[in-house]
């Protein structure tokens, strides 16, 4: 759009036509105070805090609803404006309890800030304030009515942003109140968006209320450990008796791929970390019972047994099962441990999507994978299968808000009437199981049309739709695990045939994509290289066996037959998730690294207490392939990161850990002075080295040493280290990956999680459990139109 020139406080400002005055001011570094205005929500004009003087306009204008016009001359800070704003604050404080000393928002409250700026703390009112007790609306949401300043941000974010419409305004004028959809409680997605967006402490969360003050916490920006979308979440941590306690999750820092968004899991389901069942001591089976032991004992025993088996039978008698929630560095390290230390390819993980088939379809072709940011900006989206509202909350948010804010055209094709159909320009229901045929048809295979033609959807309708999609340049195609194996090639073909189109494959769990990319497959090395092919991994690691190893079902069979002597499970619960008969492993030596005594851990011979992803550093790759930093926030004494445990086991086996973790390399450098006049120099030096991955890795437990190797050897991961360290997302690519593979589709088992579940981990979250219990008590809501 054409640019418009205005003058604000004597400064020349240029912004595109249609820009709101408040935004134009912001772009020039001039802050106009606001309560009700919130970017990307509908305009409210309710609070009058943003009043500014526009020359030739008789009265003060609300900057949040005024669109800039050529030649406008604006003042944002005159005595008149000051007085007006002060008046507004005074009115807001009229019935405000001013209980800042106990209010959760104290210290980061917008009303507090405004009162300090405009000084209206003294009231002319002499009437008694109208008090109302705090109400609990759900396990997550609490409402303190007198604190509410009626900005309606909560109502709008819940309706417009979340498409839940659970909050409303009752009554009128000064008696207006925010009301939940079920008289005295909420029936909603419990996302907490309303709480985070509330400028004051009127909406507070069950997780954080009355716990601490914002300035008493350390805030750590990391990546959510639940679904595969990879939201950036800021964890507030505080010292506790057992290390560092996570007391809050939010996304103050809106720089992440999720912008304003977090779902209940990213915001509140960090509480599993402090569950009382958390293991904090290694356990060794003695006389049939798991008994507390020391770390030395545990590592010694594991090292000895693994060594014996390797020497006597060979590494092929050991199976390794990895995790979808450990970092890329740990996954990479684990498969390297299997291949280099144990010398076996018996490594697998819980597969939730067919990434190897995606790699097979995309390698050697121009890059067409979409990032999570692309989903928010694409002019059109085709969604085949999955139910993102439940399984990929961020993805659903990106899609909904792309439709709402950018008028993107959404095409939904699903076997169920999923909620996102409400935003769809076109929703078509197809018979369950025909997603593959659909992909084939869309890719141009006309014969496949029979399988998807139904009474409701005629052949002609399908052909029209296909033509329409072909005419959607820059389309983003998103598909769920319904499409696997060779059918993925059809989706890739469709995508490649459309100008600028990109594709997203949906897996479950925080690092399922990372687990796949890092080669937790019996036949695939990191980057989807086949174990059978020669290449850099074989050159560097020398000892990697060429024959594919065992898949999980094969390992179970092997254990039953007696050929699999040991099983090493890192951060997974296969016994429960694959309903394996626990007695299958009666004669095998089982080692489990986990936070809890899961169904798999109870059958183990050694259980090692693991740290979770909020308690360690590394990187995660989300389902789109966006690589992000995982930073250590919490800490529970008595646990170790999976990374350290893998290295220690290798050491206990008598293996030279330098061959496993390339530490001690990098530039041997004089770090210069760290104090005194030259200290800045040293810091800059260190930052530069770090950004280039050249800082000395002093310890074999430094995941960055493995990240170096990943960035060097895994195709598509050579992204900017500087950006990763700065907390930005970096999109990895698949076009130069190895050839991938077409696996048996039955090996893929989607997690089927919903908004309130998160695999085994979710069972240990009190917040998620209380929401689930609460829902069982309340009948389900009925759905209404999205307008």
């Amino acid at each position, binding site marked *: 759009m054409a640019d418009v020139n205005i003058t604000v406080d004597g400064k020349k400002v240029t912004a595109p036509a249609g820009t709101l005055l408040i935004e134009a001011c912001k772009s020039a570094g001039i802050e106009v105070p606001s309560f009700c205005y919130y970017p990307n929500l509908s305009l409210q004009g309710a609070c009058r805090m943003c009043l500014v003087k526009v020359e030739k306009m008789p009265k003060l204008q609300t900057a949040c609803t005024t669109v800039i016009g050529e030649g406008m001359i604006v003042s944002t800070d005159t005595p008149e404006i000051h007085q007006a704003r002060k008046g507004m604050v005074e009115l807001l404080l009229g019935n405000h309890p001013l209980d800042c000393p106990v209010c959760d928002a104290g210290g980061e409250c917008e009303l507090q800030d405004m009162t300090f700026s405009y000084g209206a703390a003294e009231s002319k009112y002499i009437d008694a304030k109208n008090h109302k007790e705090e109400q609990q609306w759900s396990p997550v949401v609490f409402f303190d009515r007198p604190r509410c300043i009626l900005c309606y941000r909560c109502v709008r974010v819940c309706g417009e942003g979340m498409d839940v*419409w*659970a*909050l*409303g*305004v*009752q*009554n*009128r004028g000064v008696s207006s109140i925010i*009301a*939940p*959809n079920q008289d005295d409680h909420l029936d909603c997605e419990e996302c907490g968006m309303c709480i985070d967006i509330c400028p004051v402490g009127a909406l507070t969360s069950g997780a954080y209320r009355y716990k601490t003050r914002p300035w008493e916490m350390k805030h750590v920006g990391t990546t959510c450990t639940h679904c595969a979308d990879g939201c950036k979440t800021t964890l507030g941590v505080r010292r506790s008796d057992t290390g560092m306690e996570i007391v809050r999750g939010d996304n103050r820092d809106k720089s992440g791929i999720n912008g304003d968004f977090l779902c209940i899991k990213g915001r509140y389901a960090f509480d599993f970390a402090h569950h009382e069942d958390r293991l904090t001591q290694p356990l060794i089976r003695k006389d049939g019972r798991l008994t507390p032991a020391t770390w030395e004992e545990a590592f010694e025993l594991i090292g000895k047994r693994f060594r014996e088996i390797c020497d006597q039978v060979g590494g092929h008698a050991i199976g390794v099962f990895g995790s979808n929630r450990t970092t890329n560095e740990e996954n990479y390290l684990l498969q390297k441990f299997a291949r280099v230390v144990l010398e076996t390819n018996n490594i697998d993980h819980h597969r939730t999507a067919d990434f190897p088939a995606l790699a097979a379809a995309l390698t050697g072709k121009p890059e067409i994978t979409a990032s999570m940011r692309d989903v928010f900006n694409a002019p059109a989206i085709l969604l085949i299968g999955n139910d993102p509202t439940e399984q990929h909350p961020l993805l659903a948010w990106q899609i909904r808000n792309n439709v709402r804010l950018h008028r993107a055209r959404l095409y939904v094709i699903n076997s169920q009437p999923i909620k996102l159909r409400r935003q769809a320009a076109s929703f078509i229901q197809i018979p369950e199981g025909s997603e593959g045929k659909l992909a084939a048809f869309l890719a141009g295979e006309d014969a496949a049309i029979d399988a998807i033609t139904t009474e409701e959807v005629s052949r002609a309708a399908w052909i029209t739709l296909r033509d329409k999609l072909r005419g959607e340049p820059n389309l983003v195609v998103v598909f769920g695990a319904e499409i696997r194996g060779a059918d993925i090639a059809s989706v890739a073909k469709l995508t490649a045939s459309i100008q600028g189109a990109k594709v997203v494959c949906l897996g479950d769990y925080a690092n399922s994509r990372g687990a796949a990319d890092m080669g937790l497959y019996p036949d695939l090395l990191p980057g989807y290289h086949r174990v059978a092919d020669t290449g850099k991994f074989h050159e560097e690691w020398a000892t990697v066996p060429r024959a594919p190893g065992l898949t999980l079902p094969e390992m179970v069979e092997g254990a039953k037959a007696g050929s699999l002597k040991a099983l090493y499970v890192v951060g997974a619960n296969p016994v429960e998730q694959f309903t394996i008969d626990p007695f299958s492993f009666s004669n095998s030596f089982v080692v489990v690294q986990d936070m809890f005594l899961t169904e798999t851990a109870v059958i183990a011979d050694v259980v090692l207490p693991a740290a979770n992803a909020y308690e360690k550093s590394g990187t995660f790759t989300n389902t789109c392939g966006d690589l992000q930093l995982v930073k250590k926030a919490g800490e529970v004494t008595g646990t170790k990161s999976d990374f350290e445990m893998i290295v220690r086991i290798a050491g206990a086996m008598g293996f030279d850990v330098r061959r496993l973790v390339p530490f001690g390399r990098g530039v041997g450098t004089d770090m210069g002075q760290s104090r005194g006049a030259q200290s800045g120099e040293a810091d800059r030096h260190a930052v530069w080295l770090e950004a280039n991955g050249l800082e000395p890795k002093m310890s074999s437990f430094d995941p960055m040493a493995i990240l170096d190797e990943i960035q060097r050897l895994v195709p598509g991961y050579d992204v900017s280290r500087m950006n990763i360290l700065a907390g930005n997302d970096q999109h990895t690519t698949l076009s130069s990956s190895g050839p991938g593979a077409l696996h048996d589709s039955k090996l893929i088992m989607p997690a089927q999680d919903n908004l309130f579940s998160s695999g085994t981990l979710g069972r240990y979250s009190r917040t998620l459990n209380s929401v689930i219990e609460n829902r069982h008590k309340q009948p389900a809501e*009925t759905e*209404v*139109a999205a*307008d």
Partner: protein
Amino acid sequence: MKFSDQFEARFSDMLTHYPTKRSVLVPTLLYAQDEVGYLSPDVIHEIAQRLDLTELEVSNVISYYSMLTTKPRGKFNVQVCTNIACMLRGGEELLDHCKTKLGIGHKGTTPDGTFSLEEVECIGACSWAPAAQVNYDFHENLTVEKMDKVLDEYRKN
């Protein structure tokens, strides 16, 4: 939930007057209230469904307008104006008189369900103050005696 044919005819006609369905909400609520007497949970549910709104949205709108009520009222809703013109000409005395005579207060309903009483703002009959409105009928230039007669008339019906 079943409404009269007349309601249905009005409802379907109104739908054609506006670009979006939700626009007919306020008149629909009023017609429904006239017919049922108040906006019961059933009515709210029904109207929400017909207009693709949440029940919360419907009750938000009801709570905005004092003419709309979610509580049953008497057969005759006596609305006495005490806004400026009426107040100057004895509106408040009139209200007090009604309170004593009917034995109920503001927004109260007589035990036999015949009368409800409400103190209201200007009803637009200032020229003939003091004024009161019973359901949709106006009664003007009232005195305590006249008010008695009015109420007696209604009681007979």
